[in-house]
């Protein structure tokens, strides 16, 4: 039972990580990365590491996507303004 759960969680993490790398658009990637955070948290819980799961959830579900999206928006706004001035 434990082994099956661990295997499922591991494959989930591997699949999500591959999807995160394969997603080229940073906005879409931010969404996949927040999924990866949840998947990692599940894996850590199954591997009996609730502390690390908590840490990963705190960072992965809101903080990292927010930072990524804000950077994307800043770059995008700058490009828009360049388009207008040139």
């Amino acid at each position, binding site marked *: 039972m434990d082994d099956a759960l661990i295997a499922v969680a591991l494959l989930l993490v591997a699949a999500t990580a591959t999807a995160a790398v394969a997603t080229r658009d940073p906005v879409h990637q931010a969404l996949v990365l927040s999924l990866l955070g949840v998947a990692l948290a599940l894996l850590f819980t199954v591997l009996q590491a609730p502390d690390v799961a908590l840490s990963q959830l705190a960072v992965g579900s809101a*903080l990292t996507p927010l930072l990524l999206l804000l950077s994307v928006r800043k770059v995008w706004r700058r490009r828009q303004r360049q388009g207008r001035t040139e």
Partner: protein
Amino acid sequence: MSVLPYLVAVWVFLAGCYGLATSRNLIHAVGCLTVCQAATYVLLIAVGYRDGATAPVYSDIEPASRPVVDPVVQALALTDVVVGATVTALLLALVLQISKRHGTVDPDELSELRG
């Protein structure tokens, strides 16, 4: 089963490296770097796991009543998760500076600029 977690960590790490090397957008590259970081956490936690054990937290179980997994690697991983996020923020700040100075976030165009 006895090497599957390690292999998954290797796979995630290599996938992250591939994305890092072929990325056409620095923000995407930073995202790939976080995937690489995730691989190290998986490896660390997998090394510390013990069959049939539980977490080394004794607030709700009696000490020595159940076998526990290795707390040392968990401590390493947990600090690194949070510190890694701030380092990601630092990298994103660098990306923003690059985009401000050069008007692009594509690493290929950047190397052309430098000549």
